[in-house]
């Protein structure tokens, strides 16, 4: 025996960099050295460029498109219009929401920035010349920008293509501009409870139109190889497999002849889930020209035309007893979908998971109805850093709680605490039908209030208010609270699909003879660090160091089928698939180890990175030894090699939750708010990589800050986009962004193999309410009940003015 000390299981565990370690990211080497490979970095032989002629008008008939001057330019190769796409049946395309959308203007345009013609040329400069030379004649039509005017009797009909259809993809339509009515809960019972209640708060809560605006815009390179009949498309796709299937269905190119590749993606935030006209036109142009086509939208295209988020008008009523026990919740939402219903929601949920709007509270009865309408605005309605319509739902209930607290005259922290679902009530079935998996809301809430010293904050606020009233200060202090429950990890195939594709996800693992591994997943990172964290899940499951595991995503020719990355579904679904595939590897490894150790399968046990003989830990086989044996020995009854694949259909959604507090000081005369404190406590179940979780929380909070305090897609009455550049569309800089305090509790998900719930979107969901509630809280003593976001300087100044606070 040599006297080298055998490493303890703790030492071996730490060598794996598995679950719970703040492993440094493997992605960073290429990104910090300028060696990322984003779609605009792709350069293929003979590649041409494409770009759109876009509509300057929000609603008009297209009388004529004259492409001759553009085609006469030496660098322009082709100009596609709807007439060119019609023979292929590609002038319209299906949306993910069961509607259809014009790829290129077919007789009319329905929003400013709509795609009218696609110009193909030598380079982006030649294409820009071509775009400027296409002459389009329009006949202007009356414009609808107000969703509440869309269904008036004499409202202009926007979608003439479906004007006579009384049934849409989600049931009856009552007006040509009406898309669907979607209901959940008990209507009559809720009305009764609210009618008879001791206290009712009634409010209109508007979550304005905004935009995910990832730093990299959307784009693709389409390459049709006519020799092999194979189409390859590199693009900014958050769901590459779904794109492949959709591309095959609408183009009639067999699915095995389509390869979709998502290279590095420069942020997604829901903006890159859908299928956009640029992808279709690039594919057609590549087929027409026989060479690869690159299309990358610019920032203005992106903000004007590609996948907005929110625009929900949520009228609510919440009832309670005099002592603050909530008895019922009613909500009617008018959803402005723009010109086409292109929401990226699971098919059966045209309003996403808006029915999570009972939030973190034990509300006995509730009713929700959502009416979607068409307006002359860009299509979208995507989940911008949240699960489907979950920030809308969370913002709605967190505002209703504040308004109710005001009505009851009690502190909203106390009102929340009084109505939280209790720990022992989990799994908890909500009045609108969801089964919450786990939570300990009281623990999180109490921890948060203590961490920020809530009582002291209220005292400080009183003092500041007195100074203001005494004329000694022009500043008010606002304390914004929020508690949120998300619903993520879509989702169980029984009720979650997109265009009929079940929302499972998959992981395939191959262990190499020398004991390192490659794993492939159906998801695709856009900055979340999957290559780092999924390797950590596997390291803990199969005892191979994370640094010895390569992780690949985003190539449909090599990765197993999955529905992609959005709605915080990667960890809950693909993360679960990864753990389950790892367990299959381990099960086979157990048989191999038992054979090598000459004992029965049941007589070996797992120990971090090896199987050892029960009761004789000095007799063991490491995963490295087992891996080699699987390639090297003929083991009776066991196939050679060590590989596994798992397709994971989650039994339920996961329900991350958290408690956030924002403190700000508002200058009444300028409307400028100074953020003094942002505290965010998240419970995302089992924590895979604390460093990455913290980074996700910082980023999500900053997006919440942006949305609540200034970011919007605004239209004038003619349907002109007022916020089409980063000059007008607010993205906070480092200078405006506060420093954040993060905290956590851990309540694992009982149904997830490792207990993880997902975290990427929580800070946006919880953050928007906390920032907005702080603004409302500052003006509460002067009678403010509800003010619409975004709370930019002008709007906050206006609140103060309307309340008579200016001299």
């Amino acid at each position: 025996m040599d006297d080298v000390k055998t490493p303890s299981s703790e030492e071996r565990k730490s060598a794996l960099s598995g679950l719970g370690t703040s492993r440094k990211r493997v992605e960073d080497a290429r990104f910090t050295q300028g060696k990322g490979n984003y779609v605009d970095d792709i350069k293929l032989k003979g590649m041409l460029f494409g770009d759109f002629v876009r509509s300057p008008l929000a609603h008009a008939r297209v009388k004529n498109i004259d492409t001759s001057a553009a085609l006469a330019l030496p660098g322009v190769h082709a100009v596609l219009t709807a007439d060119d796409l019609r023979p292929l049946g590609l002038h319209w395309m299906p949306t993910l929401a069961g509607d259809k959308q014009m790829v290129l203007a077919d007789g009319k345009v329905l929003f400013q920035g709509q795609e009218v013609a696609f110009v193909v040329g030598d380079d982006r400069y030649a294409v820009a010349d071509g775009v400027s030379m296409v002459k389009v004649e329009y006949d202007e039509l009356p414009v609808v920008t107000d969703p509440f005017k869309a269904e008036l009797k004499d409202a202009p009909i926007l979608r003439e293509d479906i004007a006579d259809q009384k049934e849409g993809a989600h049931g009856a339509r009552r007006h040509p501009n009406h898309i669907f009515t979607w209901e959940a809960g008990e209507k009559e019972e809720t009305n009764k409870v609210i009618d008879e209640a001791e206290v009712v708060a009634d409010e209109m809560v508007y979550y304005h139109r905004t935009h995910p605006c990832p730093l990299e815009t959307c784009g693709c390179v389409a390459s049709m190889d006519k020799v092999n009949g194979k189409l390859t498309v590199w693009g900014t796709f958050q769901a590459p497999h779904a794109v492949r299937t959709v591309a095959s269905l609408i183009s009639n190119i067999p699915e095995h002849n389509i390869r979709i590749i998502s290279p590095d993606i420069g942020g997604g935030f829901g903006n890159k889930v859908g299928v956009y006209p640029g992808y279709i036109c690039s594919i057609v142009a590549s087929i027409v020209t026989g060479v690869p086509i690159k299309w990358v939208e610019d920032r203005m295209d992106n903000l004007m035309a590609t996948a907005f988020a929110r625009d929900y008008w949520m009228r609510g009523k919440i009832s309670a007893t005099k002592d603050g026990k909530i008895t019922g919740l009613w909500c009617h939402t008018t959803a402005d979908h723009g010109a086409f219903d292109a929401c990226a929601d699971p098919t059966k949920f045209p309003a996403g998971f808006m029915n999570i709007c009972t939030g973190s509270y034990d509300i006995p009865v509730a009713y929700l109805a959502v009416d979607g309408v068409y307006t002359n605005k860009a299509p979208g309605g995507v989940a911008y850093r949240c699960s489907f319509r979950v920030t809308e739902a969370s913002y709605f209930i967190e505002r209703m709680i504040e308004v109710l607290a005001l009505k009851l005259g009690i502190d909203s922290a106390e009102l929340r605490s009084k109505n939280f679902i209790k720990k022992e009530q989990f799994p908890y079935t909500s009045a609108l039908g969801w089964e919450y998996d786990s939570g300990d809301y009281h623990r999180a809430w109490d921890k948060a209030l203590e961490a920020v010293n809530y009582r002291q904050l209220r005292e400080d606020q009183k003092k500041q208010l007195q100074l203001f009233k005494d004329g000694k200060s022009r500043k008010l202090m606002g304390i914004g609270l929020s508690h949120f429950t998300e619903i993520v990890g879509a989702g169980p195939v029984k009720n979650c699909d997109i265009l009929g594709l079940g929302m499972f996800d998959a992981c395939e693992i191959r262990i190499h003879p020398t004991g390192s591994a490659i794993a492939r997943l159906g998801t695709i990172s856009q900055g979340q660090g999957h290559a780092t964290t999924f390797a950590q899940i596997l390291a803990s499951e199969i005892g191979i160091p994370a640094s010895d595991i390569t992780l690949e995503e985003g190539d449909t020719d090599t990765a197993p089928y999955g529905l992609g990355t959005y709605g915080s579904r990667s960890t809950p679904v693909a993360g679960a698939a990864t753990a389950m595939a790892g367990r299959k590897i381990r099960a086979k490894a157990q048989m191999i180890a038992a054979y090598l150790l000459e004992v029965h399968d049941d007589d070996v046990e797992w120990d971090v990175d090896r199987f050892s003989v029960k009761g004789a830990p000095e007799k063991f086989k490491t995963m490295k030894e087992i891996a080699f044996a699987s390639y090297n020995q003929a083991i009776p009854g066991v196939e050679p090699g060590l590989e596994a694949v798992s397709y994971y259909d989650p039994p339920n959604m996961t329900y991350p939750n958290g408690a956030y507090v924002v403190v700000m000081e508002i200058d009444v005369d300028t409307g400028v708010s100074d953020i003094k404190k942002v505290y965010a406590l998240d419970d995302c179940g089992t924590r895979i990589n604390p460093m990455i979780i913290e980074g996700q929380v910082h980023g999500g909070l900053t997006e919440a800050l942006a949305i609540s305090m200034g970011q919007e897609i605004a239209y004038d009455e003619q349907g002109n986009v007022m916020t089409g550049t980063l000059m007008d569309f607010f993205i906070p800089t480092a200078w405006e962004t506060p420093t954040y305090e993060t905290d956590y509790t851990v309540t694992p998900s009982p149904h997830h193999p490792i207990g993880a719930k997902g975290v990427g979107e929580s800070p946006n969901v919880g953050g928007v309410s906390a920032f907005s509630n702080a603004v409302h809280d500052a003006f509460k003593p002067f009678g403010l009940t509800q003010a619409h976001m975004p709370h930019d300087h002008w709007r906050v100044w206006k609140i103060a003015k309307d309340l008579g606070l200016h001299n």
Partner: protein
Amino acid sequence: MEKINVSMKVNGKEENLTVEPRTLLVHALREHLEYTGAHIGCSSSHCGACTIDMNGKSVKSCTVFTPQAEGADILTVEGIGSPDKLHALQEMFKEHHGLQCGYCTPGMIMRSYRFLQENPDPTEDEVRFGISGNLCRCTGYQNIVKSIMAAASKIRDEEKVNKKEIA
């Protein structure tokens, strides 16, 4: 459009290009010279993803015409370190999780590279102001600021050692 010749030094190497005069510098770097580190996020000087160093100043290369760089000395993220010897900023961005999707990172690092020469011992607030021309959508800047502070400290320490060695 008639093309013209432009010469410049990029990452220490003399380059001669023949481009249309309207060609933006970011396109010349990315598409003609294949330095794809500088990215395009807005084309309007707001986001800073295209930031490079030109004649000792941070420049947003999406709003510079290539002929304006005639004779210039240009440094991009590809030129400040090598896989064997990373620049302190490259190391510290990884160490402190100063990036997520990586799209803003080359611009952010190049701005920080120049900023730390302008101000080698900055406060956190000075860092925040110094990089306020560069937008990030993922990180909320907190870890970027941390990375830059750590890099500043590392660079100062290295310089102290260098001075001692020279002395």
